[in-house]
């Protein structure tokens, strides 16, 4: 296990939560302890990047919610190019990507119990298909889940052990829901966790920002795309030097 700690470079565009900080939050940020950096074998966990959240195109969520109730609209589309770039960099560096998708088999959901208490649902289960641009490459693992966290009731822990992953980089949605609970459980299972802010989104900015800040304060290191790519490069160099 690495004993390096991450320096947490300030993202080029500033921290996503800067405009919500008050004195209480500034105090907590000042007290934040440095967290471990990525180890020698990081893995990417990509949470719930299926067609459903891109539904209706890159428009404001509020305009889409009647016809496309699960869409993250413009926020999903804005995160698409950085996530494509992250995947390309990971593949070039042999960093494994584990994709997380919803198990859409109707027989796994006889009582109509869902990961959240959302009432309005998109009836078309075919939209739980990972977006083409982010589709798993040959040989990449996919985890199918029924609950918020990617770990809950899935073989993800076993996959990570088989991959000999020692640290995790997260992208996906929603920041305050499945992405967040997956990061909390990744941290709970002992992995240093990075959250790639450019590839993470929600339906409303306040909830997105507060969850990113909470994750950064309590469990993870929030980085931008450039820092995430640098960290993967550094992990490779660290592994090769060892």
């Amino acid at each position, binding site marked *: 296990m690495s004993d390096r700690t991450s320096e947490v470079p300030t993202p080029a565009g500033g921290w996503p939560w800067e405009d*919500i900080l*008050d004195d*209480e*939050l500034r105090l*907590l940020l000042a007290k934040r302890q440095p967290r471990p950096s990525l180890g020698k074998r990081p893995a990417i966990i990509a949470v719930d990047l299926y067609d459903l959240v891109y539904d209706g195109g890159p428009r404001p*969520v*509020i305009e889409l*919610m009647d016809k496309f*109730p699960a869409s993250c609209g413009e926020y999903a589309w804005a995160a698409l190019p950085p996530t494509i770039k992250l995947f390309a960099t990971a593949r070039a560096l042999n960093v494994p990507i584990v994709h997380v998708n919803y198990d859409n088999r109707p027989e796994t959901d006889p009582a109509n*119990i869902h*990961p*959240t*208490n*959302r*009432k*309005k649902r998109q009836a078309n289960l075919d939209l739980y298909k990972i977006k083409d641009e982010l589709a798993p490459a040959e040989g990449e693992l996919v985890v199918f889940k029924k*609950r*918020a*966290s990617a770990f*809950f*009731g899935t073989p993800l822990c076993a996959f990570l052990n088989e991959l000999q992953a020692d640290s995790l980089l997260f992208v996906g949605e929603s920041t*305050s*829901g499945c992405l967040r*609970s997956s990061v*909390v*459980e990744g*941290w*709970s*299972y002992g992995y240093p966790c990075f959250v790639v802010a450019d590839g993470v989104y929600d*339906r*409303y900015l*306040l*909830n997105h920002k*507060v*969850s990113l*800040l*909470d994750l950064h304060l*309590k*469990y993870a290191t929030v980085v931008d795309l450039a820092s995430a790519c640098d960290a993967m490069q550094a992990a490779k160099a660290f592994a090769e030097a060892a």
Partner: protein
Amino acid sequence: MRDFEDYCWRDLLTPEMVQIYSAYHRERTVRSHPALVMIHPPAGFAAIGTEWCETVRALGEAMRQLGLPVIHSVRPGERCDERFGARADEVVCYRTTESAFLLSDLEAHLTRARANGVVLCGAPMSGALRATAVESKSFGYRTAIAEDATGDEASLLRKVALFDVAHKYADVLTADEIIALLTQNAKVSAA
């Protein structure tokens, strides 16, 4: 019962936020035999205010009066928060991770206690309590949180955590509202 959005986060609401999250509005309730799970904060935790601790204690007393189980979640090696009024004969589960469920024996204790739901209180709301609420829902328990029996280190983190959880995972109510619903349940089953 107050309106769905009439809780501590009300000052954060914008019309857009209310509309986007209206998809999650629903009836809130508690089941017939829930267990109260008290999330005891880690030693040295500096919450804002202390009133919520009194509410935790009162909620515990009310649930005991109704014959419902009270279970405590504490960090390994630490003790129950004295302000919460835990009794010596009640189950204590050690919280080795953020959630009271993950890698603990809480789920087994809930099964043994024949709990069909969970009521949560304690601190920190944006940390252990939130993570526990998400897992409680994941385990299939109808879950309620006593809003005024939760503490945190930062007011904004607490409000948004309660907002998120109220919409996606649990029924957020005041302790009095929860006690009223439980009392009503008890009357119905006695009749």
